[in-house]
Structures are given as structure tokens and as C-alpha cells.
């Protein structure tokens, strides 16, 4: 759901950076508290995630670095520090350290009832925020400068939406882990974009895709031993993306190809018909037969198109001669005029 905003802001990679940036926070939180209490660890993740995000944003606006450079720098720096701390922790004589690496790859099975409540709470909160600031967030996504001239506090909106994205990512870490989290954020949104041209529907669809990926992924991994849940969820989400790319009616590859083919065919017929129209126009009797041979010189003529035109009863074919039907003449006249209009 929040992923829709990341995708539309062209900040898709930000999700990746945030999830990596959260890692040192987890490690530091563990070092300080010496427990694995999820609240402490997630708080650490949240802080370092936010830190990383606003660092990236600052870097982009204050220097001439491209956003992908800034993202890459922060991502690897934070992840490096995180890994360093993790290996350090593993050398510590503390029995508690086992299990921290679940944040790397995620482990949905370790979710407790309390975690689920936390997740639901945050989800509800973000739905409320989206509903509340829908108009403003939409405007910000489409045209940030313009939003400013209308008197809205762009900085506040930006911090708001970014904070929620960070929060969502951090909470997802436990389930799918640092490495795969950005897929969870983006895949549902990317899939949803294919099916609709309305932002509202897109957000709802993304939420549905995300929920289904979670349910199916968990079900599949639960029914097959040895499959960990996080990656399966991501695979299911990616499957939704694949299906959407191929089969969505307007933006999908399949229907695009079909439309292209149909258009080409229709254009071919129209070309032949308009040539016939021009010939027929010069004679008083529009249905006067002409030799098929004279068409050879023009574009768009083939045996198939002639047959197709005859099937549609736009022309009649008699041996080596063709003639236009009244219907065909009218249709051609109509098409011809339309074409002229649109050329103006």
C-alpha cells in the first residue's frame, strides 16, 4: 500500500536502502539492551532507518550527487556497519546472540502474537493517515513544486509519508528480512499499477496483492517442509507482478501485442479500401467493376485483404474484377473524412 507511493515517487530503491540501513540499528539496539526484545530491536531499526533515509535525502538536495549514487553509498555504508556489528556480536560470550541473523533473511515463524498486533496497529494507522491526507499526498506525488505554491507544507508531508514507509519496512524485516524487504514493498505496487489508472484503486489493489502474497506464501511454506516463509512470500508477490505485466488488459504485453496486430490489420484494410474509394469516386456508378490488377500498384493490397473486405460485404469480387458495394462506399467515405479531420 505504502509501496504505491514509493513506486510513484520514483523512489523504488529507497526501500532497499532503508531496509539495509535498519540493520546497524538492530545490532546496536542489541548491544545496548543485551536482549532480543523485538520492541527494542525494532526501535533501533526504526531510528537507523530514518537516519539513513533523511541522510540520503539531504545528500541529494545538498550536493550534486545523483540519487542512485547517494542511495548506493548509504546502503552499503549502513549495511557494512551492520554486518561488522553482527559478526562482532557473534564473537561475544552471550548466549542470547543466536537468532539475530533472522533479520537478514527473515523468519516469519518467529512472529509472536504481540508482533501481529503491532503490525495490524501500524497498518491501521497508515490507512488512517492515507485517508486523512489523501488529497495532499496525491498532489505531492504528482507535482511537488505546485503543492508548495498552493500553501501546503511539503516538508511535513514528505516526512510523514517517508516515516511511514520506513516504519512499514522495519516491521517487515522480521518476516522477510533485510535482503528481500524492498521486493515486498514494491512488488504489490508494481503489479497493481498494471491493472488500473486510478491512484485510489492502485493503493487498494496493492494492499490486496500484498495480503494475498502473505497468505499464499505462508500456506505454501507451511505445507512444504524446508521452505522458509519470507522468500516464498516474495516469490508469490513476484508471480503477481509477472502475471500483471503479461495479462493486464491495458498495459499488459499480451493485449498490447494483440491490439497492435489488430490495428495493423485494420489499417491494411482501410488502406486498400481508401484506394478503391478514390478510384470509385471518379466514376458516376460507384459499383462499376474495376480490374484487380490496377490495385497491384498500390500499398496495402493483398489477396487476404481483398477476401476480408469481401467477407465484410464492402466489395464484390467477380473473377478478375472488383466493385464497391454501396455499404463499402459509405464506409470508405466515412473513414476517409475522419482521417482528413484528424490530420488537420
Amino acid at each position, binding site marked *: 500500500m505504502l509501496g504505491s507511493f514509493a513506486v*510513484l515517487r*520514483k523512489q523504488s530503491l529507497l526501500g532497499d536502502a532503508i531496509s539495509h540501513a535498519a540493520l546497524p540499528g538492530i545490532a546496536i539496539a542489541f548491544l545496548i539492551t543485551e536482549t532480543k526484545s523485538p520492541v527494542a530491536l525494532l526501535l533501533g531499526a526504526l531510528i537507523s532507518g530514518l537516519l539513513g533515509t533523511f541522510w540520503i535525502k539531504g545528500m541529494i538536495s545538498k550536493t*550534486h550527487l545523483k540519487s542512485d549514487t547517494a542511495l548506493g553509498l548509504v546502503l552499503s555504508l549502513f549495511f557494512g556497519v551492520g554486518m561488522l556489528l553482527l559478526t562482532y556480536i557473534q564473537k561475544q560470550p552471550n548466549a542470547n546472540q543466536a537468532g539475530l541473523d533472522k533479520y537478514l533473511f527473515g523468519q516469519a515463524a518467529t512472529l509472536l502474537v504481540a508482533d501481529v498486533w503491532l503490525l495490524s496497529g501500524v497498518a491501521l494507522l497508515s490507512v488512517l493517515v492515507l485517508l*486523512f*491526507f*489523501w*488529497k*495532499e499526498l*496525491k*498532489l505531492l*506525488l*504528482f*507535482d511537488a*513544486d*505546485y503543492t*508548495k*505554491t*498552493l*500553501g*501546503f507544507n511539503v516538508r511535513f508531508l514528505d516526512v510523514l509519508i517517508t516515516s511511514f514507509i520506513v516504519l512499514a519496512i522495519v516491521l517487515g524485516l522480521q518476516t522477510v528480512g533485510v535482503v528481500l524487504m524492498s521486493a515486498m514493498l514494491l512488488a504489490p505496487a508494481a503489479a497493481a*499499477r498494471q491493472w*488500473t*489508472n*486510478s*491512484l485510489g484503486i*492502485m493503493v487498494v489493489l496493492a494492499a490486496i496483492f500484498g495480503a494475498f502474497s502473505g497468505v499464499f506464501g505462508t500456506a505454501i511454506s507451511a505445507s512444504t517442509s524446508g521452505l522458509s516463509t519470507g522468500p516464498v512470500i516474495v516469490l508469490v508477490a513476484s508471480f503477481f507482478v509477472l502475471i500483471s505485466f503479461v495479462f493486464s488488459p491495458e498495459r499488459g504485453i499480451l493485449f498490447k501485442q494483440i491490439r497492435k496486430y489488430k490495428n495493423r490489420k485494420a489499417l491494411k484494410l482501410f488502406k486498400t479500401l481508401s484506394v478503391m474509394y478514390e478510384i470509385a469516386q471518379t466514376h458516376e456508378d460507384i459499383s462499376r467493376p474495376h480490374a484487380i490488377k490496377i490495385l497491384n500498384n498500390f500499398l496495402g493490397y493483398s489477396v487476404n485483404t481483398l477476401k476480408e473486405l469481401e467477407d465484410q460485404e464492402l466489395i464484390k469480387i467477380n473473377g478478375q474484377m472488383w466493385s464497391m458495394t454501396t455499404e463499402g462506399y459509405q464506409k470508405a467515405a466515412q473513414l476517409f473524412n475522419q482521417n482528413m479531420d484528424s490530420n488537420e
Partner: protein
Amino acid sequence: MDKDSQKYAIKVDDLTVAYNYKPVLWDIDLAIPEGVLMAIVGPNGAGKSTLIKSILGIIKPIAGKVTVFGKSYKQQRSLVAYVPQKGSVDWDFPTTALDVVLMGTYGSLGWIKRPGQVQKKQALEALEKVGMLSFKSRQISQLSGGQQQRVFLARALVQNAAIYFMDEPFQGVDATTEIAIINLLKELRKAGKTVIVVHHDLQTVPEYFDWVTFLNVKKIATGPVKEIFNDDNLTKTYGINYKVSVQK
């Protein structure tokens, strides 16, 4: 408030803007009288868009003061409408033409409140004014460049402002749209509005505008087209020996 600045729709004093160490606008003084249709001309990188953006508070200047009818821009925001460059937004954004025009009403609505029937009616009227009513439900990605520009114009019209800033509204539009747009701008001027346009095509300046500002980091000249649109100022602005090829 000083009397002097109240006479002008926009008054800019000592405006300086820089990106890092490089000055983009240097000590600009500019007074734009109410009711003019003004072109801002100058070479690429002269700071034309930056000037508009700093007046509108999108870019923060290093120094300088902007007043709108004698008061600060923040107080007068509702009197000013902005048409950004068409290329500044992602036209693949999932929304319709009507929806984009409705955005023009968001400012007067303020936070949280959603547009209702009144706003929708205003938006439809604006679409009609730019000849785009039949495209109201069309996805913005499926509009031509000229149509997208018209939608942007309609969005500004909905704001019902006194001053309009437009950043290259003629860029990438066909001749028909260009004529439609300039007629609309002239209509706005007739209604007493002030219209300020970043413009690239020097040939059309005398025909379209009655006021002009030459800009190249510094302000070269500003005034009525009839008086100051000449080879001398063009040469100063563009740095080469420029001859106005149009007959006046």
C-alpha cells in the same frame, strides 16, 4: 506598507539566488505593473525559471524581498497561480484530466477537506475554457503534449488568481494550441489579470506580449515591448550581435 510597492502586482528587490557558489540570479530589481502580459526572455541558464520559482517561494533565495500588491507573497498566496513546465511532472501518473484540474482547487480548500460539487463545477468550466471538456475523463498519459499543457492551464485558471506565472507554456505544443493558449492569455489580460510567461521564441514577443523583461543572471532591462524590445537589449542579453528579424 510603502505606497510604492502597492502600485505593482509584483515587486522584487535585490533578489539573489545561487546554487552552491554559482550565482544564478544576481541582485534583481523588478517591478511588474498590474494588468500586463509579460514575457521573460534570455538564453538558456539565464535563470528565467529560477526567477519565477524564487518569487513563488519554491526556491529559497540568498537575499531579496518579494511583494505581491504590497504585501508578502505568503499573505497573498491565493492571488497567485503557477503553471510549471510541462516536463516537470510524470504524465504516466494514474489520474484523469479532470482530476488534475481539480488540484487547482486544493489551495482554497486547505488541509483535509475534499473537493465537492462546487469545485467540480469550477474544474469543468476551466476545462471548457481551454477546449478540453470532452477529454475530462481521459487518462493524462493519453493526452498529447498540447492537451497536457491545456490541462495545466485549466488547473491554474481554476485558482481564479490575479497573477499567473507560466513556465514555457508554448514548449512542445503545435501551432493550433499555441494560438489557443495565447488567445486565452490575452483574455486574462483583458480581465485585468497580470500574466508573466517564461518565453523562448523571440520572434513572437512583439505579437504576443505588451511587456518584456530581459534576463541573463542580471536583469538587463524591463519595460513595454514597444520601447525596449530592440537590438541593443537583445545583444546585451544574448551576448551576440542580435538583429530583430521581425518588422514592427
